[in-house]
């Protein structure tokens, strides 16, 4: 490859004309940047305009209802909270465990390469395919029905590669001198990991996990596929209970053809985005605070 090989004929000898072409091009690029930023501004402003008036104490503490003025997101908030807690419990140990194996234990062989390639590919499998897997395995085959557990297991599979990749990066960034110092004092491999590698890598692992969880908190498609679009007017009390979640409730209200529920959807979006943005901010703070 020879990047930028001279192309005769297209070269203009008048410097002024070439400069003008550059300026025109730069303005086109600026326009493109403005398009992206403007999209974000329009999105946020229209959401705030539609959603903020819908927010009230009653909205947060009422169950969904056929009547827009009485409907709220209590069961959706509780369902999402349950979901995030369960996903965290499942994906954190598994994702970090696999990361420790790959970075600290795995020999350099074809199986390890296969594992790494496989995880990279899993990270780009469409979320709807995870939903299909969850429907066939968790909902039907394991007969978990449309429970919180089935939903959380599905989302955990989706989040695992994200947690794993972040954890591996954090573990890789721990200098070998730490491990060698521990070994020199007679520590076993696990002792070196437990007392030195893990604490040093923890901020990175935690921030990656939070980012993974914030992804799980906004996922809609896998939950729709496993059949979570149901009317839930009670509090979920155990992992085996049926559930709704904020993205599901938003989807449901957005499909309302007459638009009476659109303001409620916007209100729920404001709540959801608020939580997700706080999680992302927390992840960034943790990373920056401990990064040295």
């Amino acid at each position: 490859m020879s990047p930028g090989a001279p192309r005769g004929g297209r070269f203009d000898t008048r410097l002024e004309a070439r400069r003008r072409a550059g300026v025109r091009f730069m303005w086109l690029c600026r326009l493109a940047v403005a398009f992206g930023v403007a999209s974000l501004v329009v999105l946020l402003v229209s959401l705030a305009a539609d959603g903020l008036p819908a927010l009230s104490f009653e909205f947060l503490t009422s169950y969904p209802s056929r009547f827009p003025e009485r409907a709220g997101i209590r069961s959706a908030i509780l369902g999402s909270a349950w979901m995030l807690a369960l996903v965290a419990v499942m994906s954190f140990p598994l994702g970090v465990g696999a990361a420790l194996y790959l970075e600290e234990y795995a020999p350099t062989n074809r199986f390890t390469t296969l594992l790494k390639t496989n995880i990279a590919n899993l990270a780009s499998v469409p979320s709807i395919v995870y939903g299909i897997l969850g429907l066939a395995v968790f909902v039907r085959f394991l007969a978990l029905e449309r429970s919180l557990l089935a939903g959380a297991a599905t989302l955990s599979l989706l989040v695992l590669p994200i947690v794993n990749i972040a954890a591996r990066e954090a573990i890789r960034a721990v200098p070998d001198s730490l491990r060698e110092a521990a070994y020199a004092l007679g520590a076993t491999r696990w002792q070196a990991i437990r007392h030195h590698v893990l604490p040093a890598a923890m901020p990175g692992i935690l921030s990656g996990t939070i980012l993974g969880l914030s992804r799980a908190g906004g996922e809609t498609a896998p939950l729709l596929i496993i059949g979570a679009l149901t009317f839930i007017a009670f509090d979920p009390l155990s992992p085996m209970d049926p559930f709704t979640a904020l993205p599901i409730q938003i989807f449901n209200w957005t499909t309302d053809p007459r638009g009476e529920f659109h303001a409620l959807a916007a209100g729920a979006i404001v709540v959801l985005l608020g939580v997700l943005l706080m999680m992302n901010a927390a992840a960034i703070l943790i990373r920056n605070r401990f990064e040295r």
Partner: protein
Amino acid sequence: MRKSEPGSASRVGERLIGALLFSSGALSIVATVGIVVVLLTESLGFFAEVSPVEFLAGTRWSPDLVPRSFGILPLVNGTLLVAGGAALIALPVGLATAIYLSEFASIRTKRTVKPALEILAGIPTVVYGYFAVTLVTPVLRTLFPGVGVFNAASAAIVVGIMILPMVSSLSEDALSAVPGSLREAAYGVGATRFEVATRIVVPAGLPGIAASFILAISRAIAETIVVTLAAGATPGMTLDLLQSVQTMTAYIVQVSLGDAPSGSIEYRTLFAVGLLLFLITLALNLLSQRMTTRFRESFR
């Protein structure tokens, strides 16, 4: 400091922990095998009743209306129409954004634009779906009378905005990875900034840019919620962006909302369509990975 006894007990413990960590790693293989097995077994049941030729080459998709017909091309058409429309927006705008950020922007501009794009990338798809239904579709309907409540254009525009940050950030990574020596050499022979950007940096970063394009298109093809909410559920062979279409993903949602019993042909179509979607996105992702590797190697 903890005490450590180098006895057999701790050695067993070490082995146990190693085995536990290995099994959590091996779970990723189980997940992959699970996806493939689930998609294949149920699809095989489907293909026992419908010939693969009819499925892949048929132009009528009517899984529940008699006479039934299982030609997937209308769904593929819907998917490509929306993904194509989205690419038309996201690829040029994303690349131009990347060029600007990498070659022209001041550090201050970068510091405001990059977080904005990151926020855009972190917004859940259902929010984009809401945006399409409540803002983009009404605007389109005022501009073009005769546009339906559901139309491909609204979905394409919003999916385009959704994948824009992916194109811009991955392309910018590719452009930033082009060695400064190439730029300096070009400046040395009298090139302007514009010429350096478009004739040196972009061609050199092309494999990386292509990788970002492919990944973004793959993401658009897999996108589910925006197309379900905005494009509707009318499978058809139209290329008209102003009409309602159904994508593969929207069909999968439709079936799973409809409570089809296990073992029925409708339940199985879900897996056959899912399998095709999985294969298409997998192929695109592998292609994108190969281009990224090639790109990295070209500057080693």
